[in-house]
């Protein structure tokens, strides 16, 4: 199982704060993004090619190419705007 989190405008647009799913076929962050994009509709738009999507695995900022493993917490969010 992996946990996927969405923050800020992503959370609002997708109307989803978090979800859990089996690893089946997912190997890296990029494969998770493809799976989410494949849901179409608003998911397709948020995760469209060329959109700026930031990702953290287990609360560390990382890249699309990062491998994932069972138990990981994967978070997607737009560029940060604190401070």
């Amino acid at each position: 199982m992996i946990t996927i989190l969405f923050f800020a405008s992503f959370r609002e647009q997708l109307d989803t704060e978090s979800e859990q799913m089996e690893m089946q076929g997912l190997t890296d962050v990029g494969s998770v993004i493809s799976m989410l994009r494949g849901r179409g509709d608003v998911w397709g738009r948020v995760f469209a090619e060329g959109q700026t999507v930031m990702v953290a695995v287990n609360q560390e900022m990382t890249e699309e190419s990062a491998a994932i493993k069972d138990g990981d917490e994967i978070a997607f969010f737009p560029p940060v705007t604190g401070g």
Partner: protein
Amino acid sequence: MNEIRIQAEPLDPNRELDLLRADNPAIGGIVSFIGLMRDINDDKRITTLSLEHYPGMTEKALERIVAEANQRWEILGSRVVHRVGEMKPTDVIVVVAVASAHRGEAFQACEFIIDYLKTRAPFWKKEQAPEGRYWVEARFSDQEAEQKWK
């Protein structure tokens, strides 16, 4: 010695500076940045600001930034406190305060921490204006500010 805190309660910068100062009589200088909610942003009058964050990751990101500042400069103490939740114009959003024996290092470390916080700590601002509510866009100038430390 390096305090990092996220809070929903109003943030009092004076208290943070007093606590940092009380720490150590070897402190020769304290440089601080106080970030305030402005009443106008991009020509829109802002009435309320909502700050969302990613609990857990935020603290880790800030700890990493402060640790890097401590590696780069000789620091005697620091405090990074960020507010979340709803706030009003003139409210304090963030305080970054750095103490050192000599001022140059405190200036560098303080600016480094706030520059990195702006691009690497998971906070998001949503503004309420008469025109509606919308998420604040990331600024290119913040990306540039981060680059100068590379």
